[in-house]
């Protein structure tokens, strides 16, 4: 399971390096709200696994300071929404320290948190805020969609030297999936083709991957072959993989749970249209959340983020767009 894969990654890295430690609200005795850190307190003791008060700015700040001073902290923030309280430390300290020191200072800081909609937890506990981190130079942004990716990427995150926003999804913790045995590490910047296809390139990440795969399966039955690409890390982004696929399919759909305006999908679309303009047979389609905070009501919550039918429809629009528009011209 996703959450076990995460736990294994932390466990293995803590065993490997005494400078790795983890702090967060209720992560020690209680094992964390999503049980990712269960058992770590017993194994590594209260020096390296500790609870914090409700002080996100402080936790993130001391994590960044500890990283600058050479330790390898993981700070768990319960909901990515709460990371807003620590934005100064993320944006103005962690992301900039390397530049400000002329390159010598490094910040091997990992913030683990989770986002996304799920179960009526409403506007302040349901956001997908990756775009905010994505825009800030100096931050790596990681959003694993499977247990194997979660483990491999988290292990890599804990060994490299730049601040990482490691964004899990509340819907994925119980996801099952094979995790390779032995030392399993996934470098940043390497996307993964979650399903091969020839008609359309579909780019998605995190919880939109399982949903996109379902859509792809449905579309396959209708004779439409969708290639599903999971960049896995949004910064750095595997542009080559995306552009290569688009040069083959001539069509791209991007699916994000976050709201449409100013999301990462827009940025990827801007890259595709810039780099593959002459390849494209149709505009890049974006399927995204509505530009409104996530409502409490479960029906509306679902209506506010992309569902399988939305993805299916967008792929079809993308396929038929050229004919349609050519006709209209």
């Amino acid at each position, binding site marked *: 399971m996703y959450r076990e894969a995460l736990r294994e990654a932390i466990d293995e890295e803590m065993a490997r390096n005494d400078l790795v430690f983890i702090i967060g609200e209720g992560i020690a005795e209680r094992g964390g709200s999503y049980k990712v850190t269960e058992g770590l307190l017993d194994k590594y003791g209260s020096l390296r696994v500790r609870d914090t*008060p409700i002080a996100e700015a402080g936790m993130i700040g001391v994590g960044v300071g500890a990283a600058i001073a050479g330790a390898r902290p993981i700070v768990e923030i319960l909901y990515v929404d709460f990371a807003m309280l620590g934005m100064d430390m993320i944006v103005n300290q962690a992301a900039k320290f390397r530049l400000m020191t002329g390159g010598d200072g490094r910040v091997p800081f990992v913030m683990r948190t989770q986002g996304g909609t799920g179960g009526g937890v409403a506007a302040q506990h349901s956001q997908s805020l990756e775009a905010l981190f994505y825009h800030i130079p100096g931050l790596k942004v990681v959003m694993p969609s499977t247990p194997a990716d979660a483990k491999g990427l988290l292990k890599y995150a804990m060994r490299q030297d730049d601040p990482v926003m490691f964004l899990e999804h509340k819907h994925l913790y119980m996801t099952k999936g094979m995790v390779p045995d032995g030392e399993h590490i996934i470098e940043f910047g390497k996307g993964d083709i979650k399903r091969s296809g020839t008609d359309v390139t579909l780019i998605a990440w995190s919880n939109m991957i399982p949903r996109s795969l379902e859509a792809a399966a449905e579309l396959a039955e209708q004779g439409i072959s969708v290639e599903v690409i999971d960049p896995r890390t949004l910064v750095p982004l595997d542009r080559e993989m995306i552009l290569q696929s688009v040069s083959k399919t001539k069509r791209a759909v991007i699916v994000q749970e976050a709201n449409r305006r100013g999301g990462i999908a827009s940025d990827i679309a801007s890259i595709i249209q810039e780099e593959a303009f002459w390849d494209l047979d149709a505009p890049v389609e974006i399927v995204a959340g509505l530009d409104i905070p996530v409502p409490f009501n479960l029906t509306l919550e679902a209506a506010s983020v992309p569902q399988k039918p939305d993805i299916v429809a967008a792929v079809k629009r993308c396929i038929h767009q050229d004919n349609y528009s050519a006709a209209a011209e």
Partner: protein
Amino acid sequence: MAKKSSASNAYSREFLEKIFRTAHKIRVFETEGIKLYRQGLIRGYFHPYLGQEGIATGVCAALSEGDYIASTHRGHGHCIAWGADVKKMVAELLQKDTGYCKGYGGSMHIADISVGNLGANGIVGAGTPLGVGAALANQIRGSDAVTVTFSTDGATNNGTFLESLNLAAIWNLNYVLVVENNQYAVSTPIEESTREPDLYKRGLGIGVESHQVDGNDPLAVYEIMRQAVETCRKGKGPVLIEAKTFRHMGHHVNDPGKYMPEDRLTYYKQRDPVDRARKALKDMSDISDGEIDAIEAEIAAEFEAAVEFSKNSGEVSIEDFRAFAADY
């Protein structure tokens, strides 16, 4: 700091009845609400106020129309004590568009700005700056309204506490920060979050009049709050009140709360604020047991009617929501 003895005969039956009604109504709302939750009718978060009823009750009894409150993730009690319509509260929890927030908000966001309720909040500590802001707005408009933020022990370790209370202090705002010290933040006991579990001392450090009170005693809370309101209306606010209390169960409906020590739980349950409100009403007025039973029956009926109303309310409209989004 008490300026006037609160001799028992100082309270009218009407007042004591109001105190009891409020405390008991919160108790019923939470107890019955938990049942609805367990039936799957309420989704998302539900943080019961059970055990802390004395605080909302005592505090709101000292406030007047025109005053403001801001609340927490554990906010049902504050709403009720502030006089909210139980029908609209239940409808909100049941995601109906007859709810306080059309079902868009839910338990953690019930607000009613038309009567000065700035709302519950999903962000621990956020009610403090919002409350100070309302107090500032009132100062700007020349109103002597008092704003109260109900806050928590957990929130006192958050930067918002220092920043906003300090602003309230330098601007002498009509503001009372009520810290409900239930001694836990989810499973973390206060002793692990601070070296100084007497939280009112944090106010002293920045020159704010600060008090500690037994949060399980609605009348004691009322008395200290009454004084705080007076201090404010004299232009000498803000005031910090730390009200010691304890939850009767875990952090939210699905938290068994096993980490809460039995003996402390027993200690506080023996000082149950609703029982104390009932006892005060009995001891200090001429009310009969039958009359008390009637009050309880009335409140039970009110809750049942609210559930009925909510169940019969229409579902939210996806079209309305989409239109709202387009305009957002």
